[in-house]
């Protein structure tokens, strides 16, 4: 076999959320093409939102992704409240942030333990990993469970929470109802710190990416459930200008749309958030990040698992802080009276920025909806990373190279359910 | 001898019960209704709250006084404590032993007191016996019947029948806020001795009696007179069931809120390993399609037959099975039916169809 012309085939990419394929063409020892091919069937959410009530977007868009439903819900209510200029007040906002922390903990931990760590340790899945490292996996599951406990207590359900709505919540939990969560989270904090230390011991291939970065920004805290936008070139803009900067286009090989930031390839997600906002992390998160060898920025996508682990520490800290200072909002929601116009909302889904835009008519019905999920924003970056990884590792044999490609993709925890969905790898070496 | 407690005396009574280790269950406001819940303090009583109740509609209302018992039946009944919605019966290790609980029920109305006795007859020989044995009952005479109440026509109220330890009648006027007390047991009598009270004046006793008696005339609903047991028995093939079935959701709410509906389904389950097996039971409803399931299909598939089963059981076949009416007239099934189906109106409709050849 020559290393100059090769053809690689991978049936289905595993341990990603959704379904897709990867196609790599190598000719004359050069990577000619890398395509992340998304074949998740489209579900036409933007179309089926037309004619629905403004209040329904929260429940409907949640169903785009079972992994990060709170992200969809948050971006939706942010957009609706942007349209009406509603202010839900600090108490409701805090409860929402608590809910979102639950999703970060649960979703990040899912990715770290069940989807990504097996790559670093050479196992096909977490169940096999547990055969040799049961304590480890149990620690991960306990951490994940703590995240889900927040989602269940505050949101009413871990997947597609029922309690949140535009304006706030249907019912706000009492202090007594939140108390057991704090107990569980204090134990989870130890698990979260352990996770960082454990992951820090993994071996990370070298790769330094040069994409533009985009993340939400909040002057007072590490942005999660809302924020303005900031880029690595220190351009900042309000959410309502999002579409002036980000343009989506369709590519032939994918049912997901690809996005560009001011005409350039860019990245959102943990690396972008960390690099742009790490100074806003909690002291404990910053400290453990430093211990784990992370500087104030991180541009190696293989280290994203580490950044996620640090974000979990932060989310646990935040959740505890919020519960400790919780004051039950009464009423649990503010009235949001719809009016005709356009509203924009973003939030930081575990995998990156999630943008919603709605055009509402005078009756409060949605006339048009645009949703830009993180994976379509990141797709160009992922393809670019792949190209560089393959180019740098042409000496590897096909199985090893294929595995490395899959790993590269998993760095992004690409949520194909969101973008449309994922993976099946074909590599052609010509 | 009749005595009187004031509001502070009532609070003291609750505190004494709590201090004695009773789990005091009484009315309190939660999530838009007056529910029955364990009270940590007499301050949780629904002072100043009333309710407006109609078929399929219940609303909390602020009163212009501070009465604590001036409301009619809410979404739950006492059966949730004596006959819980879910009970574990046994595991591989044998029967599930229940730590004995001493409940003190505060604010039991005549209808509900009758229901506790009715359930006692049905569930004799089950764990209900023990739960009931340790029970202390503080009943209340009803002076403020609700829009769907009809205990007077079922003979269970408004004055509570036997079976209580203490019975209170709440009176509020320009002078004071007082509770006329009747004792029904030695336990009740010795409780009263431990709280501040005074002797009731004859006027006060009269006033309380009159108020309770007057309540009988202010019931929002009334069962048609006549032999309901025979009426239902003879109405098995009435076309009226089909008519009710058009409206009935077969949702089962009426049975779940009914203070005497006792039916349960057993669940035998194992865990994933199959190494642990256990049995529990949960409230069932004759409106559930599977309730009458026999191999090959359910006996009662139509909504009409299920509604007929329910109403006939309450008003007629209960006599055959347990010697009394299964309906005590609390009105819960009417209030909490989402479409407001009214058992008294359906009984009247059947009666109006006139005599049939049995």
């Amino acid at each position, binding site marked *: 076999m020559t290393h100059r012309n090769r053809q690689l085939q991978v049936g289905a990419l595993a341990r990603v959320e959704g379904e897709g394929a990867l196609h790599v063409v190598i000719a004359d020892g050069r990577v000619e093409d890398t395509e992340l091919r998304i074949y998740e069937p489209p579900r036409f959410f933007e179309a089926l939102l037309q004619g629905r009530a403004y209040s329904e977007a929260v429940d409907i868009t949640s169903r785009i992704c079972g992994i990060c439903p709170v992200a969809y819900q948050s971006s939706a209510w942010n957009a609706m409240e942007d349209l009406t200029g509603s202010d839900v007040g600090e108490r409701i906002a805090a409860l929402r942030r608590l809910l979102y922390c639950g999703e970060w903990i649960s979703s990040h931990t899912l990715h770290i333990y069940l989807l990504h760590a097996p790559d670093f340790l050479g196992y096909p899945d977490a169940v096999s990993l547990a055969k040799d490292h049961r304590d480890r996996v149990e620690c991960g599951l306990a951490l994940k469970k703590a995240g889900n406990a927040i989602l269940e207590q505050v949101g009413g359900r871990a997947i597609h929470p029922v309690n949140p709505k535009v304006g706030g919540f249907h019912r706000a939990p009492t202090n007594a109802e939140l108390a057991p969560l704090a107990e569980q989270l204090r134990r989870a904090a130890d698990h979260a710190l352990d996770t960082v230390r454990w992951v820090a011991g993994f071996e990370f291939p070298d790769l330094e990416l040069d994409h533009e970065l985009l993340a939400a920004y909040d002057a007072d805290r590490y942005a999660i459930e809302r924020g303005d936008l900031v880029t690595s070139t220190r351009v900042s803009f309000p959410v309502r200008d999002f579409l002036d900067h980000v343009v989506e286009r369709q590519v032939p090989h994918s049912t997901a749309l690809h996005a560009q930031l001011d005409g350039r390839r860019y990245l959102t997600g943990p690396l972008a958030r960390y690099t742009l906002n790490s100074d806003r992390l909690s002291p404990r998160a910053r400290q453990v990040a430093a211990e784990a060898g992370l500087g104030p920025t991180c541009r190696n996508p293989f280290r994203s698992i580490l950044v996620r682990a640090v974000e979990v520490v932060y989310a646990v800290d935040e959740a505890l802080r919020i519960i400790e200072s919780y004051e039950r909002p009464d009423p649990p929601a503010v009235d949001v009276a719809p009016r005709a116009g356009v509203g924009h909302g973003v939030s930081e889904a575990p995998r990156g920025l999630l943008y919603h835009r709605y055009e509402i008519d005078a009756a409060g019905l949605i006339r048009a909806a645009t949703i830009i999920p993180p994976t379509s924003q990141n797709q160009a970056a992922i393809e670019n990373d792949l190209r560089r990884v393959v180019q740098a590792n042409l000496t590897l044999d096909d199985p090893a190279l294929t595995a490395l490609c899959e790993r590269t993709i998993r760095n992004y925890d690409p949520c194909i359910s969101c973008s449309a969905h994922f993976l099946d790898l074909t590599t052609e070496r010509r | 001898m009749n005595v009187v407690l004031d509001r502070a005396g009532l609070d003291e009574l609750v505190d004494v019960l709590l201090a004695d280790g009773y789990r005091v269950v009484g009315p309190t406001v939660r999530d838009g209704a007056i529910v029955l819940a364990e009270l940590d303090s007499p301050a949780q009583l629904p002072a100043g709250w009333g309710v407006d109740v109609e078929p399929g509609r219940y609303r909390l209302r602020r009163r212009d006084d501070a009465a604590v018992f001036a409301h009619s039946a809410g979404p739950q009944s006492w059966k949730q404590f004596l006959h819980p919605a879910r009970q574990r019966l046994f595991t591989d290790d044998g029967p599930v032993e229940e730590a004995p609980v001493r409940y003190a029920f505060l604010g039991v109305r005549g209808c509900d007191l009758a229901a506790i006795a009715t359930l006692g007859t049905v569930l004799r020989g089950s764990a209900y016996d023990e739960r009931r044995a340790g029970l202390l009952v503080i009943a209340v005479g009803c002076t403020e019947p609700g829009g769907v109440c009809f205990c007077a026509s079922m003979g269970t109220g408004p004055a509570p029948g036997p079976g209580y330890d203490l019975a209170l009648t709440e009176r509020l006027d320009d002078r004071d806020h007082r509770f006329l007390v009747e004792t029904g047991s030695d336990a009740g009598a010795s409780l009263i001795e431990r709280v501040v009270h005074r002797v009731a004046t004859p006027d006060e006793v009269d006033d309380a009696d009159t108020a309770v008696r007057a309540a009988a005339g202010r019931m929002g609903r009334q069962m048609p007179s006549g032999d309901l047991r025979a009426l239902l028995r003879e109405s098995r093939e009435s076309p009226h069931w089909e008519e009710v079935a058009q409206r009935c959701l077969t949702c089962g709410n009426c049975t779940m809120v009914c203070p005497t509906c006792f039916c349960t389904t057993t669940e035998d389950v194992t865990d994933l390993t*199959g190494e642990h097996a256990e049995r529990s039971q949960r409230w069932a409803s004759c409106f559930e399609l599977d309730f009458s399931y*026999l191999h090959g299909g359910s006996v009662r598939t139509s909504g009409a037959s299920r509604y007929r089963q329910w109403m006939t*059981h309450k008003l007629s076949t209960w006599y055959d099975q347990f010697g009394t009416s299964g309906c005590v007239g609390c009105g819960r099934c009417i209030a909490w039916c989402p479409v407001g189906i009214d058992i008294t109106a359906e009984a009247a409709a059947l009666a109006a169809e006139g005599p049939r050849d049995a």
Partner: protein
Amino acid sequence: MRADPMLPTPYRVAERVVETHDSATLRLEPVGTALSGARPGQFCMLYARGIGEVAISISDAQPGGSLVHTIRDVGAVSRALHDAGAGTTLGARGPFGTNWGLESAAGHDLVIVAGGVGLAPLRPVVLGALARRGDYGRVVLIAGARGPDEFLYRDQLAQWATGDDIEVERTIDRPTSGWDGPVGFVTEPLARLSVRPDRTIAFVCGPEPMMRYSANVLIDKGVPAGDIRVSLERNMQCGVALCGHCQLGPLLVCRDGPVVDYATAGPLLTVREV
């Protein structure tokens, strides 16, 4: 402490006899204390650990504490019971309900009509009558099954058929090669039977329509409804009149049945969906 009415008593399968392709008879021996006093017509709640519990009739009167039950596999629980091999531990509660009251039929002719697995609860009636043959007049058994291989207790039936103590009529639903006996539902031989209406007690068990038709045939012959005893079936969860599932109008079948005279049962079975 009150004995828990829902707690099964352990029994071990001592013997399992295959009856038909989907039915088997189990002889159960108590592991510890035995349930006592089982009478023909009554039933036990048999428990397959972790799978569930169902009502199964007493199908043989046994001295001592052992129980004999014939089970037809129709669903998850009955399958687990049916499949239980010798040595398996099962649970049993009971015996529950009314019985056939065979003694009270002394001095009468007995007409026993069984459809399918309905023969199981009736076998002890036959055995009881044979044991005290002199107490009864004519004894007739009409047993129906879907096919020749679907009869329970085939050897016993054949043996009874050869003697003079009992008249046995077997009928199958549809003609089958190798079967030269009567074909048709049990109501056909029953209709041909000449009975002394005032001196006959009938015992009927089988699918509900079969019991209705049989009772009607007997009533047409002048047998009073009160002298026709049927065994009823309703969904049963507890067996002890606590769960409410087995209601049939005024009856709690587990307590007031399963054996009920047709004067009581008739009006309930002829109205739809009671």
